[in-house]
């Protein structure tokens, strides 16, 4: 192989983590997502019964009454994710953290270092992850990222799939074009019109045709599946943070002030988190999710980055009015603060109101102190009067890690090591 790119993909990640920490769940149908009433991950035992990501828990109970249903414990999943990437870095320094449960590893040349074939390295990665973390991963190995990702998805769970350059065309002719990462259902439909059904058909198209049908991205994918590297393994993590806060309300509503108040609450939650991590942003995105699960959004760009809700609220109202339609039913609002950066030395631009910035900082510092004492959102924007008094259903949906604290831990801060729930 001229290059060896591995795509390592954890099998049913969230569900596997739960089974790894709770041995009594092994071999049983299990789903996570209790807090949002839909399946966010299903164990392979549950998948075998036809339970998949995104279906309602109500239906899960109908399909399998004894299915274990757990609230998501993102904190623990992140710890596992971090560890997974650290293990991968022991095989090659070039690891791209592609999502919480998948990574690309550039293994090119390291087989000499480890004195093993690429297949043996892939097997060892799989074994080590299983031994140390107790979860399964599937590994795809090929000459480009898109091919490696295609490979890892072919034999799940715990598969090792290698796509070599010799026999590549023959191999692709057996793969549906929609299996290629980046080619969605719409593109599949379009390509079908031109007689393209398999990845092999797609790779045989001319460059002009690919460009015409699928644009620049399609062209890049076309190159990648032909074995020509376009995408490099990006081993440096992006320094761009973002914070997303979203909440679904039941029943769905078309009450303007109520829905706006929900959005403001999301904004305040996002800002609290930003203040805690000393991050600021000037780009905010407002999402409104309609009852039919479609959504609209609006992007807001401020002059100066901030983490004070007050600074965003005026613009938020304006954009809310621009996209809100009172004849429709809404079920959720969401706020994303994007392109966040750390607060460093103060740098004011010509248009900044230095005094105001400092005043706000003092204000929010005091609010934080009060929240610590009396609870989150004790001081909030006046719009919160439109919110219904909180009916506390969150209690039952807290992950066990936040319910059963170790001595000295608080709900807010816990030791960053997973707790293995074995009764000894």
């Amino acid at each position, binding site marked *: 192989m001229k290059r060896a790119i591995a795509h390592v993909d954890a099998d049913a990640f969230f569900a596997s983590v739960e089974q790894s920490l709770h*041995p009594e769940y092994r071999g049983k149908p299990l789903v996570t997502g209790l807090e949002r009433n839909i399946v966010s991950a299903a164990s392979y035992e549950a998948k075998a019964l036809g339970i998949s990501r995104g279906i309602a828990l109500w239906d899960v109970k109908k399909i399998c009454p004894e299915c274990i249903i757990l609230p998501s414990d993102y904190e623990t999943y992140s710890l596992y994710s971090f560890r997974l990437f650290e293990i991968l870095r022991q095989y090659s320094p070039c690891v791209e953290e592609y999502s919480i449960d998948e990574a690309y590893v550039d293994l090119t040349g390291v087989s000499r270092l480890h004195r093993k074939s690429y297949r043996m390295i892939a097997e060892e990665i799989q074994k080590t992850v299983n031994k140390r973390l107790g979860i399964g991963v599937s590994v795809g190995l090929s000459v480009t990222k898109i091919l490696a990702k295609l490979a890892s998805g072919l034999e799940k769970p715990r598969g090792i799939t290698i796509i070599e350059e010799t026999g590549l065309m023959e191999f692709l002719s057996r793969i549906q074009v929609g299996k290629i990462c980046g080619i969605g259902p719409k593109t599949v439909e379009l390509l079908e019109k031109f007689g393209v059904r398999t990845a092999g058909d797609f790779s045989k198209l001319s460059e002009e045709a690919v460009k015409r049908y699928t644009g620049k991205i399609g062209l890049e994918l076309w190159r990648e599946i032909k074995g020509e590297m376009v995408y490099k393994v990006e081993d*440096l993590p992006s320094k761009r943070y973002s914070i997303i806060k979203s909440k679904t309300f039941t029943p769905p509503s078309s009450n303007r002030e109520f829905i706006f108040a929900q959005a403001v609450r999301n904004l305040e939650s996002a800002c609290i988190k930003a203040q805690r991590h000393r991050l600021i942003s000037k780009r905010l995105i407002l999402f409104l999710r309609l009852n039919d699960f479609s959504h609209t959004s609006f992007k807001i760009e401020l002059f100066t980055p901030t983490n004070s809700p007050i600074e965003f609220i005026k613009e938020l109202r304006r954009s809310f009015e621009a996209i809100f339609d009172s004849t429709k039913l809404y079920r959720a609002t969401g706020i994303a603060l994007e392109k966040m950066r750390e607060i460093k030395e103060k740098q004011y631009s010509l248009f900044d109101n230095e005094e105001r910035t400092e005043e706000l900082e003092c204000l929010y510092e005091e609010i934080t102190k009060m929240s610590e004492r009396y609870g989150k959102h004790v001081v909030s924007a006046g719009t919160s009067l439109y919110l219904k008094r909180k009916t506390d259903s969150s209690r039952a949906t807290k992950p066990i890690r936040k319910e059963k604290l170790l001595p000295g831990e608080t709900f807010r801060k816990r030791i960053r090591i997973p707790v293995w729930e074995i009764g*000894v």
Partner: protein
Amino acid sequence: MKKRIITQERILLLQRYLRKNGKLPSFRELGVLLGFKSPNASARFYRAIEQAGYIRRDGTKLISTSLLAGFKCYSSISAGFPSPAEDELCDVISLEEYLIGNNESVFLVKVSGDSMIGAGIMPGDIIIVNRGADPISNDIVVAEVDGEWTLKYFIRTKHGVILRAANDSYPDILPKNELRIGGVVTGVVRRYYGGTRES
């Protein structure tokens, strides 16, 4: 004009990192910390501060010197003879490092049973377990025997493996069907509140 590699700001960031993590950042982490695009830039920075005496090299390992690690910010500066104690601070490790080290397979387990009391592991203690590690004789292990999890000494004998409690009221376990070693216990933590109970 050539940009200076060593700046006050960078050294401060590095010191802050060192104090927080108890170690120097890896090339990759340094890149994130100081905004370098390539590991090569990190390497160059380390070479520069090595020449300036902020760090030294022990084989392939980089170690911070007192120039970097010993630097502390005091609200007031005390005059007089500098304390030699400061100089010793460069070779310290954090409690976390001492108990856990840089290990991706460490898990915490809350103990409920009393079978290891003789080894100083009490009910309610938190043990630190190196998951997936291979035990040698006399290690304390967590193991799954015939479907039950247990905490015992792992003892290898001529006739096979014995799991032995550190409590006379428990008999030795000679695994009949299946023995699965979950991990090796590397430490135990017990927290006393000492009057500062948090809510």
